[in-house]
């Protein structure tokens, strides 16, 4: 047996815990150590979207039309996919303009219009009342049901309680007190309520866990998993039709689609969603996580809805139990006392979360956009002369919270009983969807004007009142029901539920179609017809181009006038208190590099704009504008001037784009230059290396020549044989020197392009034969066998005859030098294939290692260790040969295995390739 006192005590304990969390977080924040700056807290706080409606109502809706409840969560998921584009922009705009609420946003966009802000506030308050009443209804009826435990009795059967036992009223009053404690502890210029956000995040965890607990209990405790629940439902003829629910229902798909669109709007424009997603956002980057965590939360809280709905329908087949209460009554029917209590707490957390955030958001709107603009205009009150208005502001907000909750209670009493939870909630959704055109149009379309937004909102709201709000009152017998059946004055065409004869649709669907036609139509047509004022034009640009126009002072360019620093300071102090005003001015002064207070601080456009933005954080942009206007002498800008400034701004943007491009080009050029420089340095290094190698190569023969000549000079007694020997060495070394110098000169000529090339048709066969003949003596001396495989006829190549002989001489003398010392053998093969002549010169020496093969064609590379072998060449021959072959369009390479000799080959193009080169 659950006693009502126990339930009340536990409820209060839960609320106390919430308050403790909020208090702790606020304390931490005041101490400069905020704890809510986390994307996870942000994502969880967004889940304030899931209210008592989700908690109890989803199951109710699912029990009547299956998947029909899902668009309310799928729509937001689709909208959140657009958040990267839409919400990021709204966030940026709001941060830059210190937007404090949804109404403030609309007012600010359309030229800081107080009228528009007021209208949005009225629509929001009236539109949200059903939603708040829904929460009160859910809490009070779940309480009433739980108290009856273990009996299951519907609240309607309990009978009306006397007013002092009316749970809904008590809930409303307790929540009002709680919200006041949470949301209006002090005035914050940024409207951040960190403690509240933390508490809301905590509530989101509680309601999710409670719902998952009951879901698992029903699915796996009462039944044997998902398939069991669905199989049993399929066995009941009455339930089978719900397994394919979109068929048969009139406008099934249309309802689905409109519900999706409606929810897409709701996730953006419900005041509480705007509050947690935009106003309470502390870091734009939190969006990255929220974009998928929040939809995941919605998916998780919906997984068990269908099993619970079917479970309830199977458990209570006679319809005696309201499907909206299945979440609670199923555990009760199974005698799960604790689970039922947990469910109640979960429902309570869902309801309180919604009510707290919604009323804070609405009270801010009522205060900043409805009451303050009126009060400030009433000169009789002399508000302008009051030294401190912070108390007044807080008082208004507290009053607004109490009033809104009492109005919610009133709506609950008037109309609440006639509808299911979901239907009540959808009425509110349809109301806030009216903000869609004005806001989305406002951030993407500069053409939207104040008049357009006003007409659109008014038209949409009027249709909403007529097709949803009035029928709700009529159904609750507060208006004659005949109005619905026969239309006003009996005009059938104007029946609220079948406007202009549009029948066969769901009530919400019907209302959405007409209200959106009216809203969007009026917004667009009037916007196009009316030309915007200077203020509107400026604000439109600041909003639409928020990512292009940079800097918080973007708005400062649009102000011209005179003011004094003390006046501005006093203004800020009146609304924020002198401590906050001091810190705001100190911050501004330090940004200018000045101390505060300081005589040098001038009241220029920047400061005026800064004060206005600070003020907007407390009293809304429209009121802030009026207040700032009261202390400064402002010269109104004409629309042409605003246009000029905007053009200037966009020219600056274009110019800076160009500058950016230029600097990119410069960077690229610098990189190229750096690369070229690196290359030059490398070449320089190579040149130095070349010079030092050449000198080294020259010194070796010189040293030996000098040594032998000195011996001969110093010692005239040297034997004749010895002397001849020495002179022979000297001659050889001199020849080597000459050859080296010739080759260096040759190389220099080739590399510098100054070599003279005498192109003629060269017969390679002849070249090879001539070279072989010239070297015959050398081969014979070393007893080397020479074998030449030359075809009868080969095509001529265009080349320099002497150069080709030089190449052949080089290759053959290398072969002679490096072939086997005892059984030396050199093979020359000439062949022609694919328009190319190929010459192979193969020796049977010890071969060239792979490492040397890649190096052998470079300058001064000599194969063989310095210590073991005496170098037997200049190291330039192959390099020059390759240069010559490449000059004539050919290529030269070497193939070799260690110990098996080496084969030097080159290719020279004949015919076409040559002709081409010559022309």
């Amino acid at each position, binding site marked *: 047996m659950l006693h009502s006192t126990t339930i009340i005590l536990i409820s209060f304990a839960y609320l106390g815990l919430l308050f403790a969390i909020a208090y702790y977080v606020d304390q931490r924040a005041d101490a400069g150590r905020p704890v809510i700056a986390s994307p996870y807290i942000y994502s969880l706080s967004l889940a304030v979207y899931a209210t008592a409606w989700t908690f109890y109502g989803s199951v109710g809706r699912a029990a009547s039309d*299956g998947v029909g409840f899902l668009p309310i969560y799928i729509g937001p998921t689709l909208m959140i996919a657009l*958040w990267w584009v839409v919400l990021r922009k709204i966030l940026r705009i709001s941060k830059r303009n210190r937007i404090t609420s949804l109404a403030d946003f609309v007012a600010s966009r359309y030229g800081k219009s107080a009228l528009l802000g007021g209208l949005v506030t009225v629509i929001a308050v009236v539109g949200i009342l059903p939603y708040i009443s829904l929460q009160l209804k859910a809490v009070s009826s779940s309480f009433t049901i739980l108290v009856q435990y273990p009996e299951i009795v519907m609240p309607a059967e309990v009978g009306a309680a006397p007013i002092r036992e009316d749970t809904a009223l008590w809930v409303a009053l307790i929540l009002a007190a709680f919200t006041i404690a949470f949301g209006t502890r002090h005035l914050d210029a940024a409207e951040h309520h960190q403690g509240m956000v933390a508490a809301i995040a905590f509530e989101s965890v509680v309601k999710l866990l409670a719902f998952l607990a009951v879901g698992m209990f029903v699915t796996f405790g009462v039944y044997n998993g998902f*398939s069991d629940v669905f199989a049993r439902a399929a066995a009941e003829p009455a339930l089978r039709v719900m*397994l394919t629910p*979109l068929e048969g229902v009139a406008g099934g798909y249309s309802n689905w689609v409109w519900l999706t669109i409606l929810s897409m709007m709701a996730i953006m424009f419900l005041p509480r969603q705007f509050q947690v997603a935009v106003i309470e956002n502390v870091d734009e980057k939190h969006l990255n996580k929220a*974009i*998928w965590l929040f*939809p995941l939360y919605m998916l998780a809280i919906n997984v068990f809805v269908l099993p619970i709905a079917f479970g309830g329908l199977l458990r209570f087949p006679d319809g005696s139990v309201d499907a909206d209460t299945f979440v609670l009554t199923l555990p009760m029917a199974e005698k799960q006392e604790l689970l039922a209590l947990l469910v109640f707490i979960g429902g309570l957390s869902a309801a309180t979360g919604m009510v707290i955030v919604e009323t804070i958001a609405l009270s801010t709107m009522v205060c900043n956009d409805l009451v303050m603009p009126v009060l400030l205009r009433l000169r009789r009150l002399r508000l302008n002369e009051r030294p401190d208005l912070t108390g007044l502001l807080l008082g208004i907000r507290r009053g607004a919270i109490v009033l809104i909750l009492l109005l919610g209670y009133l709506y609950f009493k008037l109309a609440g009983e006639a509808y299911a939870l979901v239907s009540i909630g959808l009425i509110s959704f349809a109301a806030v969807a009216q903000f869609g055109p004005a806001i989305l149009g406002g951030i993407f379309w500069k053409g939207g004007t104040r008049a357009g937004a006003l007409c659109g909102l008014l038209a949409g709201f009027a249709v909403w009142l007529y097709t949803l709000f009035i029928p709700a009152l009529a159904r609750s017998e507060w208006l004659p029901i005949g109005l619905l059946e026969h239309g006003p004055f009996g005009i059938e065409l104007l029946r609220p539920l079948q406007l202009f004869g549009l029948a066969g649709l769901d009530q919400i669907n019907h209302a959405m179609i007409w209200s959106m036609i009216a809203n969007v139509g009026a917004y667009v047509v009037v916007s196009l017809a009316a030309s915007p004022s200077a203020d509107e034009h400026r604000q439109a640009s600041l909003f639409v181009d928020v990512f292009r126009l940079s800097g918080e002072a973007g708005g400062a360019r649009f102000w011209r006038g005179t003011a004094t620093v003390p006046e501005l300071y006093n203004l800020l102090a009146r609304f924020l208190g002198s401590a906050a005003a001091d810190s705001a001015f100190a911050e501004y002064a330090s940004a200018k590099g000045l101390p505060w207070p300081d005589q040098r601080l001038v009241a220029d456009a920047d400061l005026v704009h800064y004060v206005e933005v600070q003020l907007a954080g407390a009293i809304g942009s429209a009121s802030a504008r009026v207040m700032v206007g009261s202390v400064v002498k402002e010269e109104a800008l004409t629309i042409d001037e605003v246009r000029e400034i905007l053009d200037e701004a966009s020219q600056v943007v274009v110019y800076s784009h160009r500058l950016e491009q230029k600097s990119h080009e410069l960077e690229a050029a610098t990189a190229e230059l750096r690369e070229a420089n690196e290359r030059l340095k490398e070449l320089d290094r190579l040149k130095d290396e070349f010079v030092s190698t050449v000198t080294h190569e020259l010194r070796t023969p010189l040293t030996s020549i000098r040594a032998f000549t000195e011996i001969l000079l110093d010692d005239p007694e040297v034997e004749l044989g010895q002397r001849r020997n020495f002179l022979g060495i000297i001659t050889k070394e001199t020849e080597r020197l000459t050859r080296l110098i010739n080759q260096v000169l040759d190389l220099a000529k080739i590399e510098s392009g100054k070599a003279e090339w005498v192109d003629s048709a060269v017969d390679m066969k002849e070249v090879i034969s001539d070279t072989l003949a010239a070297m015959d003596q050398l081969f014979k001396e070393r007893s080397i066998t020479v074998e030449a495989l030359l075809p009868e006829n080969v095509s001529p190549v265009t080349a320099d005859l002497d150069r080709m002989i030089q190449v052949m001489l080089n290759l053959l003398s290398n072969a002679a030098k490096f072939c086997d010392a005892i059984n030396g053998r050199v093979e020359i093969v000439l062949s022609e294939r694919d328009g190319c002549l190929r010459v192979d010169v193969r020796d049977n020496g010890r071969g060239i290692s792979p490492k040397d093969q890649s190096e052998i064609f470079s300058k001064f590379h000599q194969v063989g260790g310095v210590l073991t072998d005496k170098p037997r060449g200049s190291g330039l021959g192959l390099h020059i040969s390759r240069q010559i072959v490449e000059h004539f369009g050919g290529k030269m390479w070497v193939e070799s295995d260690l110990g098996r000799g080496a084969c030097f080959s080159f290719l020279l193009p004949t015919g076409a390739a040559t002709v081409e080169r010559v022309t």
Partner: protein
Amino acid sequence: MTNFETKGQHFVALCMFGMLLFNYPILALFNVPGTLFGVPVLYAYVFIVWGALIASMAYLAESRG
């Protein structure tokens, strides 16, 4: 084009694709009797597509640029 813009376009495309999948006539293809893993086809379809949509959003949101 900046990374932000590219990413934005990917998100818009994803939203369009989601709208297509959660709409007539694709939805009607799955509005049939029968079960998938013991769950009615339509329910299974909606939850699977929904989950896939969230996974894609997570991938896109957390990916660099």
